[in-house]
């Protein structure tokens, strides 16, 4: 009944009974990152296909913007809310606001302790960091020098992925992390920071980046320094990163499949509105992708 843009027109096409008037609110963490852009797009595509309205608000990675966005969705009287929390702890209030207004909430990505949500869909970022770290260590056969590029300091993902990576490497005493710097999840920064580090550590064997953007930037820096046999491992599994794996540029990426992420969330949200029971935790597919399995992985998508 509300809204004047395209979303409204879509509900006529949906054939499913019971879903005609459903409006899903989606409070997304950020769109400054291709990963989340893909999440948003897949969610919107799924909503269109299933004939429901979807209303997306963007928090730009800021906690208070997330609260505001959720509040706006509550005012809009959405039927169900998907929250991709900016922070595993800080986003609690935002969710409580919606719960109090009687709107069922699903969280994706980070789980929020103590939140009264219908279900959580996600994965363990610490574990993902560990898997990526483990893979890198194996590539280096347990020895060598590596660089770590962290995400934006003070954010959850950055902390967890770094923690996991360091956990994994703590089992490999012969691998030295020569430098660990933040590159803000940003490609340009990834390139610049890598270039700087290469000035004092020109002989490196591996590089770990907390997301694909930084990893792709780092590759740029490595290539221009003619360091083509450095193993580069990153996180996310965006389309560009996967192509880079095929091209044997990127060694591997911890793919958390943005497509599945968005689609699944919408499907589950509709089920929630229709009163179907949900498990407490739905594990999202995540898979480490390297040259070995990249074709397979792409085919599945």
């Amino acid at each position, binding site marked *: 009944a509300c*809204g004047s*843009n395209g979303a409204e027109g879509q509900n006529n096409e949906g054939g499913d009974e019971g879903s005609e008037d459903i409006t899903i609110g989606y409070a997304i963490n950020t769109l400054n990152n291709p990963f989340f852009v893909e999440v948003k797009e897949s969610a919107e595509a799924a909503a269109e296909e299933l004939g429901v309205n979807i209303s997306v608000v963007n928090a730009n990675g800021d*906690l208070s913007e997330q609260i505001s966005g959720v509040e706006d969705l509550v005012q*809009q009287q959405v039927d169900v809310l998907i929250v991709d929390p900016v922070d595993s702890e800080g986003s609690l*209030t935002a969710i409580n606001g919606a719960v109090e207004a009687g709107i069922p909430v699903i969280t994706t990505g980070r789980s929020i302790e103590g939140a009264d949500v219908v279900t959580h869909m996600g994965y363990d970022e610490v574990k993902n960091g560990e898997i990526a770290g483990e893979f890198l260590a194996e590539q280096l056969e347990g020895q060598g020098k590596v660089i770590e590029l962290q995400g934006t300091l003070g954010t959850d993902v950055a902390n967890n992925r770094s923690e996991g990576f360091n956990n994994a490497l703590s089992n490999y005493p012969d691998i030295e992390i020569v430098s660990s710097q933040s590159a803000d999840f940003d490609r340009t920064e990834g390139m610049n920071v890598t270039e700087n580090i290469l000035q004092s550590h020109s002989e490196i064997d591996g590089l770990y980046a907390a997301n694909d953007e930084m990893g792709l930037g780092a590759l740029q820096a490595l290539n221009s320094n003619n360091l083509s046999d450095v193993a580069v491992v990153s996180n996310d599994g965006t389309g560009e990163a996967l192509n880079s794996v095929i091209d044997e540029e990127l060694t591997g990426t911890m793919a958390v499949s943005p497509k599945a992420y968005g689609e699944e969330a919408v499907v589950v949200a509709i089920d929630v509105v229709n009163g179907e029971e949900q498990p407490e935790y739905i594990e999202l597919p995540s898979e480490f992708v390297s040259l070995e399995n990249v074709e397979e992985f792409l085919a599945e998508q």
Partner: protein
Amino acid sequence: MDEMTKKKLLSLSAIQKYGMMLILVLIIIIFSVLSPNFFTYSNFMSMLRQISVIGIIAAGQTLVIIKGGIDLSVGSIVAFAGVVSALTLASTGNTTLAIIAGLLVGALVGCLNGVLISKLKLSPLIVTLASMTLYGGVALVLSDGNPIIVSESGFNFLGQGYVGPIPFPVFLLIAVYLVLFFILRKTIHGQYIYSIGGNEKATKLSGVKVDIHKIIVYTTSGLLAGLAAVILTARLSSASPVAGTGYELDAIAAVILGGTSLFGGRGSVFGTLIGVAILGFLTSGMNLINVSPFYQDIAKGLIILFAVIIDRFINRDK
């Protein structure tokens, strides 16, 4: 006839003064038409609560800009003061102490900015830019990069509670604007803020201790950023070391949109409040009518432009 012309001129100048107010009203009308959920008490309270943090920061920024300066450090102060406040609460369990700690940190940072700017005659932009970087880093180090949870309900009342039907942050927002309005219009300090912004040298030649008033202005700005930090922390039940990023630009935008000149000497907090409301209502309204996020920026940019152009035509002669 002379009387009539005068009256005409008076009412014209009223419209001029409130040009931006008309635009705010226009925005409210348009969104009310587009969504039945916009023009409701609950949505207004929700929107006002949303703008309270930026609103309070922008109030302090107004004084700074009228004075002819600028304060880029307010965003970092929000992070720093929030973290300190939350840490204090965590270690002492004392709500009052935590609030005071947050306010104090803000005021101290502001005071230091003011001293550097006035006593060493440094550029406000560079000093507060350095502060912005510096205290942002301090917030990260203090919190170890992690958000700090605050579960004290007394503290969280500041962000989540109500005074009668009015959310507490909205109550604080109104109080801050009333106090600053009073300071600017009625006190000697307020008079000096305008005159320093208008002509610092002349003010100094009139025997005014310009430095002290400058320091007070930056301290006020810091203090209000500290207050904003406490409210934000209480709203979120947690303090994040990266909270407040970019708030400085939002606040400055609201101040300038509200008719305060970047060159100092003129402006009002009332205008700023309208500026804050325009920007805030716009975002909320677009979320409410479900404008796609990518198009929100485009719409926002166009509407800001439209607003200043309309305002210019209303104020054509100035």
